[in-house]
């Protein structure tokens, strides 16, 4: 939509880019979508907290005893039990957990005794930068490949892209990581095989340490997204308005840009959101392979140490992030689609 000058004095239906978001927030329908989205997210979020809490009930036996192993004093045992609230009846525990969770208190780690929230937030930047970089690499692959494949439907290029993307979807990401390390670190020695350099310490080192894990994650994410981009573009290509656009004698590039890609953006944003959420919680094994100090590795260590509060915290955080990303996608939908925006 253009930033055109007003034609008439009536500005009721006029839309321009700059004022759009603020006007949207005031628009009754968008507000309705927003409020409904937030309500839905809250309901599911409560469910997520309940499930997370329920995890510890599934532990066969006494979680504190299992966590402490064989050598512990009764004092340590009682202290840990009391600190994690496990000495209280279950319904009360749930209420406490719910209340604390919504204030950001996820209990203390069995292992280190530090607050779970602190531990998680320490590791979040590493994972977030990996997930973001992965989605970026993925998009760099998926957008051109998916669009090209759709435009060449049924031809050789399409077949090659489709089979290649199938291979990409089927590759175990940790195996890909091992192969990349073998090639680029052990053999060629171009890039570090593992570890993480914080951006604040050494931007170049940060980038170097990020390349291999990001490519590993991005190749798989890119393959998945290629398939979605392809089908989204194909669907729009088959629509009546694309035929109309062609019947106007518009150049293929204009048709593609204005009538195909623009309309395919909405479904593509969804899959990017889902990929982002998936990567945030799904790069566990890649983090282990690259010794990446993110949430995934933290969770892995927590599992090994039977640090149940930490496991719960990680699961909860990822579930909540997924829901927030989804909510953001829903709001983007409302911004992008006039059928939702103005009724």
């Amino acid at each position, binding site marked *: 939509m253009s930033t055109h000058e007003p034609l008439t004095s009536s500005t009721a239906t006029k839309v321009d880019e700059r004022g759009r978001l603020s006007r949207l927030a005031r628009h009754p329908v968008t507000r309705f979508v927003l409020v409904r989205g937030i309500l839905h997210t809250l309901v599911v979020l409560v469910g997520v907290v309940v499930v997370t809490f329920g995890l510890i009930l599934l532990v066969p036996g006494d979680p504190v005893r299992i966590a402490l192993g064989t050598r512990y004093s009764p004092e340590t045992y009682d202290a840990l039990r009391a600190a994690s609230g496990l000495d209280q009846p279950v319904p009360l525990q749930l209420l406490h957990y719910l209340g604390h969770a919504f204030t950001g208190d996820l209990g203390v780690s069995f292992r280190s005794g530090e607050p779970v929230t602190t531990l998680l937030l320490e590791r979040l930047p590493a994972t977030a930068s990996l997930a973001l970089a992965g989605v970026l690499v993925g998009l760099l692959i998926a957008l051109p490949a998916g669009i090209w494949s759709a435009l060449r439907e049924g031809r050789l290029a399409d077949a090659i892209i489709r*089979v290649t993307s199938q291979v990409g979807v089927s590759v175990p990401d940790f195996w890909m990581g091992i192969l990349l390390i073998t090639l680029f670190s052990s053999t060629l020695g171009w890039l570090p095989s593992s570890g993480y350099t914080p951006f604040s310490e050494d931007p170049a080192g940060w980038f170097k340490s990020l390349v291999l894990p990001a490519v590993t994650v991005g190749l798989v994410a890119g393959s998945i997204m290629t398939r979605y981009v392809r089908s989204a573009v194909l669907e729009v290509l088959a629509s009546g308005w694309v035929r109309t656009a062609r019947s106007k004698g518009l150049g293929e590039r204009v048709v593609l840009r204005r009538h195909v890609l623009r309309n395919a953006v909405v479904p593509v944003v969804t899959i990017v959101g889902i990929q982002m959420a998936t990567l945030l919680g*799904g790069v566990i094994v890649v983090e282990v392979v690259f010794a990446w100090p993110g949430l995934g590795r933290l969770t892995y260590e927590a599992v090994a140490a039977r640090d149940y509060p930490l496991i719960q915290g990680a699961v909860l955080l990822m579930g909540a992030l997924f829901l927030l990303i989804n909510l953001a996608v829903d709001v983007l939908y409302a911004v992008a689609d006039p059928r939702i925006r103005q009724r």
Partner: protein
Amino acid sequence: MTDAIETRQDPADDVVPVAERGPGTLRLLLRNPVSLVGSVVLLVVVLAALVGPWIAPYGVNDTDVSRALQGPSGAHWFGTDDLGRDVFSRVLVASRVSVEVALVSVGIALVVGVGVGLVSGYLGGITDGVLMRVVDVVFAFPVLLLALAIVAVLGPGLTSAMIAIGVVYTPIFARVARASTLSVRSEPYVQASRTMGTGNTYVVWHHVLPNISGPVIVQTSLSLAFAILSEAALSFLGLGVQPPRPSWGRMLFDAQDFVGVAWWLSVFPGAAILLTTLAFNLVGDGLGQVLDPKRRTQLAAQAGGR
């Protein structure tokens, strides 16, 4: 007056000759070279899973340190590991546990998910609202993380892995089944059946189930692929299949210590995972095309035109 003219004028008749049914699903599937390759690979994997232990040239845990870390050769096709165990035999035998975990876990997800989706989509209303919120909750957790947490809680092992993978793939089946049920439910043939006074059980059994089977079958094939990957990831982390039983994921984990020294340790188990997953994906993709009624007429037309 007969319907002779009418038969010939119908657009559908231009595509599918009235007297014959057109090629069967399997024939259409195998006509596509990509699906054909996928099916053949799948067949090989299933065979390996069935007879692997009997045809493996070496015992999976026969150690022979004098032969440790040898590259691929006539005696050891895939080389040997640090304990001198034959990698080929281990990869071959490990196929069974992978397929086993995938089948059982997807079976769990299929039964529970389709059940929930069917009930939810068919009954609608409050039942639908509640069931779908539950599904949303489970869906909110990243697959591997939730599986990891479940295994952590239940304790590592095969059964835990199966349950965990089954749980995390249930929501997707529920969603697929619900969406298909919703669309089938509003089909005129279901409405027609309702106006006759047909009971819910009859409608679900005779109209809904047969007509949602296509998407569910496709989802099953795709989920089997992802279940193979998830099992490999869990085993890689030491939470799935436990030694001494060989598994592809664990073999890859052990191979990490020999990166740059013995490439065969990581290449072959990984390739086995890739091929199996790929085969399930290709077959699922092919089934998706063949079972989609719109695509099917197209494919049948092309098949008939040649």
